[in-house]
């Protein structure tokens, strides 16, 4: 039984069909990463899982309910999303922004509770931005800002987190920092679904990998079991070698040298 699954999805923007009869299951408690070349439909799939895109056909189920039938706030109490490029209201402080993650738990009659306060404090602690609570978000570095946005989603207190390219626009050190943080959130018991561009990051951090191309799932499973040179070539059209990551023993993709290869002479 999986909490989040999609059946027979046909996904389309206006007239352009991105995927047809697509089905995925997100294993509970997994850190699922969706990879694939540009325009393969991975972000579109994530948007459909978060109900930001209404599928033309097919259904996304959360805990057995079609998500289209759930009230928006009810959905937002079970499933959180970090969009690709959220807007930050200018001049907002870190604490105020994270507090907005409590929106689905509040109503006209229930404005700000002890539980809201605790959730916000806990979320800021989890990503290590407690000390920045009074700072204005615009003045933070890219890495800090991404951690603040993660805190906002954490404050929602959902069991499932969807992350749309959480490492885009970050330098390598901050990418690893954010991914380490995601791994920790996963270890604490949350189900994470992320779209990532970097295949090596995906192999290192994912417990479940979904490889897509042209709107289809070509392979899924633990990276160590499914990532081979053939798969990478099929998915990305990139000739490569797959070796064991010297740090983690997970698959490491080394693109084939097209211009200079290792020979006896240049060794």
């Amino acid at each position, binding site marked *: 039984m999986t909490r989040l699954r999609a059946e027979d999805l046909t996904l389309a923007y206006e007239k352009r069909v991105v995927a047809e009869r697509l089905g995925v299951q997100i294993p509970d408690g997994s850190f699922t990463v969706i990879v694939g070349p540009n325009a393969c439909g991975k972000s579109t799939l994530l948007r459909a899982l978060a109900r930001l895109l209404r599928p033309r056909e097919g259904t996304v189920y959360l805990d057995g309910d079609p998500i289209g039938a759930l009230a928006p*706030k009810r959905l*937002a109490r079970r499933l959180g999303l970090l969009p690709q490029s959220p*807007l930050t209201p200018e001049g907002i402080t870190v*604490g105020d922004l994270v507090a907005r993650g409590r*929106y689905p738990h509040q109503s006209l009659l229930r404005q700000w509770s002890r539980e809201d*306060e605790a959730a916000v404090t806990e979320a800021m602690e989890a990503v290590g931005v407690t000390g920045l*609570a009074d700072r204005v978000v615009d003045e933070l570095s890219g890495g800090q800002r991404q951690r603040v946005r993660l805190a906002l989603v954490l404050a929602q207190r959902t069991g499932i987190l969807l992350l749309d390219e959480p490492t885009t626009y970050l330098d390598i050190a901050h990418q690893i920092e954010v991914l380490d943080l995601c791994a920790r959130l996963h270890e604490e018991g949350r189900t994470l679904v992320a779209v990532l561009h970097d295949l090596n990051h995906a192999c290192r951090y994912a417990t479940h990998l979904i490889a897509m191309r042209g709107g289809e799932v070509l392979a899924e499973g633990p990276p160590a079991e499914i990532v081979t040179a053939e798969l990478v070539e099929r998915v990305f059209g990139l000739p490569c070698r797959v070796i064991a990551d010297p740090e983690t023993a997970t698959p490491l993709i080394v693109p084939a040298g097209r211009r200079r290869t290792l020979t006896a002479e240049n060794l």
Partner: protein
Amino acid sequence: MPPPRPPARGGRGSHRLRLALLAAALLATVVGSLAIGAGHVPLGRVLSGVFSPDGGSRAELIVHELRLPRTLLGIAVGMALGLAGAVMQALTRNPLAEPGLLGVNGGAALAVVLVIAATRADDVLVCVWAAFAGAAGAAALVYLIGARGRGGAAPARLVLAGAAVNAVSSALTAGVMLLTPHTFGGFRFWQVGSLGGREMPVLLRVLPFIAAGTVLALLLARPLNALGMGDDAGRALGSRPGRTRVLGAAAVVLLCGSATAAAGPIAFLGLAVPFIVRTAVGPDQRLVLPYSLLLAPVLLLGADIIGRVSAPGELETGIVTAFLGAPLFAVMVRRGRTRDL
């Protein structure tokens, strides 16, 4: 009792105090508006003029028949414009959006001109209804144009559609006035934007709409906050951006439409007040809306008082707000960073 939030997130107590101070400032302006004007009225007579006008003295009559309606109208129109501006800026995520952007002013003006041209009457009450119908019609048209196509009523598209509708209606307005010269006189007075010369009945006609718009706008504070984070993030938090936009636009039409219908297009207040408020309290709509609601009538009544004493005859309120507000606003924009929403 809810636990106090840490000072970083609002400092509720301090906001309560500041809102109380602003309310006190509003009260002071109201007293000023009742006491200051061409005919001298001693302060003692102001109170008796308001509450027991039967004394029949000239001073009491001035207060009760002229200044009281004018002041009440100023409060209502000011509140409506300040709140409409705040909602409009939040809806469009544009810190310099004006409530008139939805085509409200252009539509109202066109309807007034058409009515005056057709009936040769310049009955203020008829003008009020015409202006209100024109405002609502224009806003609906803007919404229909702006909401077409992918992504629904995206802010940029609404603003463009509003600019187009405003342009077309002002062209038509000018055309009608050129063809029927008699409309010019009646329209001119309405167009300048004034609190004077509008009788109590005008206020009573628009008051229910302003009240409804105010309640609706204040209820939208949290959804507008969610909207400010982008449609995707807002939706992921469980808000409904489409619904927020429709309700927000309805509030703007109710508020700005009634204000324009009652006092003519008053420039600038709806643009500047929320902008000033955001510079002071940040982007949280739960604060921006109530502060705008209180600050706008202070400024409008202030401008009206200045208009009364500055010129031998009297300067129309709309002219004073533009004259005083524009330079002040320019200084603020140059000094502080422009805050986005």
